[in-house]
């Protein structure tokens, strides 16, 4: 009775064999599904577009970011200055472009740091359990309990102020929550029978975590990641405001927005344009994150 219906479709699939041989189906299929999600796709292109512009800023920016025209002062958007100029007569478009470089970099690097450490740490703690888990998570608790500002100030004092260090410092704080989320997920997943099945096949611990545990914990991770990126960008603005981040005349979106708020009533464009840039990026990230989560959930769609 067993092989009765299996010859069915045999010939048709023989041609497809090459396709399922290559790569990881989960990500491949996720990409196929993501392409069907218009909103996510548009968001992805918007992000790529903004990213490319920021990358090319030194070559395509209309003015220098520190180039002042004190005679001009704060002028409204015009043909020469599309986004207007700030109180020192600097071109706002140029400053938004340069600011984007810092903001996007801090968002990506700090989040990548948080993601890597957090997911690995949480997965190992959650999967191993017992004493290892207790020690790893107590460490997380301890870092949590450290006052964040003092932690950053200490880092800056010891290692000197550098942009890269700032990124790492933010990432080093943001991974804590990620680790907790992942650990919780993993604790549930590791009790499922397919993990036991993986053990009985003979897979190593690392392979089980990588192939069976993490893909099943991705949903909340993606959602939290899309929440982390804006968080990190705002944190950078806050640190810069305290003099711990980037310094004038350099800028970031966070700094530009903070400055814009001060002169919101007289020169609203100083707030509107950097705010718009940040909002577009955050919206896109959220749509993309949603789309990615749905795309990675193989159960969500029928095809």
């Amino acid at each position, binding site marked *: 009775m*067993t092989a009765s219906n299996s010859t069915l479709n045999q010939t*048709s699939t023989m041609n497809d*064999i090459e396709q399922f041989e290559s790569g990881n189906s989960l990500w491949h299929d996720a990409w196929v599904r993501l392409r069907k999600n218009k909103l996510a796709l548009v968001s992805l292109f918007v992000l790529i577009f903004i990213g490319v512009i920021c990358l090319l800023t030194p070559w395509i920016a209309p003015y220098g970011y520190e180039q002042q025209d004190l005679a001009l002062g704060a002028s409204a958007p015009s043909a020469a200055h599309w986004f207007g100029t700030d109180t020192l007569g600097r071109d706002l478009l140029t400053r938004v472009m340069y600011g984007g470089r810092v903001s996007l970099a801090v968002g990506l690097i700090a989040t990548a740091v948080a993601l890597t450490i957090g997911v690995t740490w949480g997965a190992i703690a959650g999967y191993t359990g017992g004493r290892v888990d207790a020690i790893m998570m107590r460490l997380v608790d301890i870092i949590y309990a450290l006052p964040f500002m003092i932690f950053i100030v200490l880092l800056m004092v010891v290692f000197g102020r550098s942009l890269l260090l700032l990124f790492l410092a933010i990432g080093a704080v943001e991974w804590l929550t990620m680790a907790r989320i992942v650990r919780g997920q993993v604790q549930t997943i590791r009790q*499922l*029978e397919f993990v036991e099945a993986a053990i*009985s096949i003979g897979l190593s611990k690392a392979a089980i975590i990588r192939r069976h545990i993490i893909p099943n914990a991705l949903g909340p991770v993606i959602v939290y990641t899309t929440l982390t990126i804006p968080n990190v960008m705002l944190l950078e603005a806050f640190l810069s405001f305290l003099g711990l981040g980037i310094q004038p005349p350099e800028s970031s979106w966070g700094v530009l927005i903070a400055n814009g708020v001060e002169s919101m009533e007289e020169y609203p464009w100083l707030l509107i344009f950097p705010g718009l840039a940040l909002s577009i990026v955050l919206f896109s990230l959220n749509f993309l994150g949603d789309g990615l989560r749905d795309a*990675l959930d193989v159960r969500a769609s*029928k095809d």
Partner: protein
Amino acid sequence: MTLLTVNNLSTSFYTRNGLTKAVEDVSFSLDAGETLAIVGESGSGKSVSCYSIMGLIPCPPGKIESGSAVFDGVDLLNCSDDEIRAVRGNKIAMIFQDPMTCLNPYLTVGEQLIEPLIYHHKVSRSEAKKKAIELMTEVGIRSPETNFNAWPHEFSGGMRQRVMIAMALIAEPKLLIADEPTTALDVTIQKQILDLVAEIQKKRDLGIIFISHDLGVVKNLADKVLVMKTGHIVEQGNAQDVLENPQHEYTQKLLAAIPKGAKENPKAEENPEPLIQVKNLVTEFNVNGNRFRAVDNVNFDILPKEILGLVGESGSGKSTIGRSILRLVDAQGSVNYRGDELLSKNPQQMKPLRRKMQMIFQDPYASLNPRMTIYETLAEPMKLHGIAKGSELNQAVLKLMDDVGLARAFVKKYPHEFSGGQRQRIAIGRAIATKPEFIVADEPVSALDVTIQKQILELIQYLVDKHELSMLFISHDLAVVRKLCDRVIVLKHGELVESGNVEALWQQPSHVYTQSLLAAAMH
């Protein structure tokens, strides 16, 4: 006296994937003191029909398209929310399949019992408590005064189902709807619960609608039987007529799928060399700081090419034995596999041996990684143990799918796109992918419908013969064990109480526990 008359009930679900007609044109009636059994496989609409009557279908996505259900002069399908609430839990009560999830863990048993009484009958607390204790006595809960203040987690499954029954009865309903009330219970407990329901029915002149997939249970219980398939009634009538002289092809198929009788040609070799020798196996767990001995000094052999049944109730440690042998849990004692002592091996040393020993799990919904395609699931063990590579691997996967009766076209699909039976085929495919010698099958068919169960059992037998496998077949279902296994061992509270050839043990069980198990298994 007619208690409930259902006419032309149709219920549909409007989902993203389109319209599903869950129940179509279902009509039946029930008298007081009568038991109607609604039988069918999962997805046949048997639960949906009863939930529709009770107004428990979530709308949307559900919608009751047409029909009437007249109970006590009220049409339940066309009345106000208030009217139906007055009936629900009061004149019609329900017991559910899973007593573990149907009790609120944050309320004491007594508190949950008196809730409907205070709500529907506006009686005082002390009066309600008195009545609750009476009922707890009636449903056979020992020392009801103390247990009134017990928490649900302190009760076993059978005890909780008794609480559920007491809860259903407390408002003195006229109709009881029981949705697979014993499916989650052990056979001996199942018998007690069914006896209890029958006794209460006689005493109270209850009408009972009994939803079940288990025709063996239905046979001893029902006055009338209604067989459903894909939302339609295919046959209904007097229980004896339907079960002994089924007219519809589907009913005949259902009845034929019940495992009956003994294995046709059990293996009986003279003194063969055992494949696996288990000696003084002890497995202990930490439970709230205490050592709990799940498996206590168990000794047995598994012979080459035999299917050894391992029988016992839930909590008897039968799954733990299987997992101990495969080193999925830590154990003491000795498990000797062809001269290799498994329990002293480290993970590196275990790896080549794992290829030779695999496991099939109970729940095909949990045992497959939802994010891996069938191809990946089947290819993983072969890649790991270097059995096949590249294009050879693809061929091997496809051949494996042929072997377990899955169409090759499914190779790139994900587990959620399959039915329970198909998923179990995938899981079996994964287990035989490494060409093992020995497989532990932990209740591989207990989550499946009876017709699917039959197919999977046939598949297992086919593969065992074809690949000359040895198997430890863990089950609580004695009929299945009798049909499939060559020898059987019986476990109680972690100890081995009896072992022997299946048929010999069936005819003359020597241990009291085995006798009670056999007596409780009604088919």
